[in-house]
């Protein structure tokens, strides 16, 4: 006889609702956590879109500035550009 053949059937007496309740609590806690994680993920996606948008805007502004500089200093290969300011390499982020 296999273990599953001798397994007791699920009795549906009074204890059933308590057992169901305990396991549902577990599932609900996990689901709440997953929902919070999903919200965070969507926020992160929004920030990523925003970052892409900012970068595109910066690139457009950079290109426009480059054209203006070239127009003002046609003989200078550097276009009278100032050295670029270095950004910080490490982020100080709140989590």
């Amino acid at each position, binding site marked *: 006889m296999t273990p599953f053949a001798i397994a007791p059937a699920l*009795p549906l007496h009074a204890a059933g609702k308590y057992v169901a309740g305990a396991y549902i609590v577990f599932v609900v*806690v996990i689901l709440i956590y997953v929902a919070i994680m999903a919200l965070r993920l969507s926020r992160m996606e929004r920030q990523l879109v925003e970052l892409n948008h900012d970068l595109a805007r910066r690139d457009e502004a950079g290109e426009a500035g480059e054209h203006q500089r070239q127009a003002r200093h046609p003989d200078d290969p550097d276009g009278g550009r100032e050295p670029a300011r270095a*950004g910080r390499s490490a982020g*100080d*982020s*709140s*989590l």
Partner: protein
Amino acid sequence: MPTYGKGLRGLSILTLVTITAALILVFFYVPLDATQGFIQKIFYIHVPLAIVSLCGFVFGGVLAVMHLRTGDRRYDLRSYVAIHMALIFGVAALLAGSIWAKASWGHWWVWNDPTLVSYLIVLLMFATYTPFRFSIEDPERQARYASVFAILGGAFVPLNFIAVRAAQEYVHPRVLTLTGSNLPGPMLLTFLVSLLGIALLYVTLWKYEMAAKNARMQMRALRRRLLGDDDIRPLPRSAAPSL
């Protein structure tokens, strides 16, 4: 910067398989308890949740020791997430236990059982961990003080466990002892699979949380590098560690 998402897919699948196996064993394999009957099946979710949450608090304490020893703030972040997850598991254990108490003893809560009350004390103590962090504005001090808190809390867990074991009067059944378990074979097997499933779930969620926080940090660092400091909004005060 480390990547916490590595191996997360395999771990998630393993967790899902183990928890599914545990549920199959609980509801289709393990025999009914002679005295408690069907209600005893709560044991397979309540006890693993409680054990894993307590181990999570100790884990958070160990990571806090690492933080103080090395000064590496990433250990503070790991400790924070470990305690955070353990607290979630602890609340689930408390709720499941309360439901079992109502069914078995007729009360949602009893104050004369040292196991219950001591567990509540541990849980409430760690519930103050996040507000405690939030109360300290300076990130360096916040990380240091939180680590001291986590170490003391983590050390309190086994001491508390020993104290409860020494208690003579209790309502809680003593199923697992230092010399072994009082469970018959099928029940012990089911319990161990459930414990493994919940422990894997804890590790998986810890890694998920770490991966999410790491991704946010990396994105902010990238934004700072690409756009410069002026375009980054100042950080609001937070209980969460900042690196």
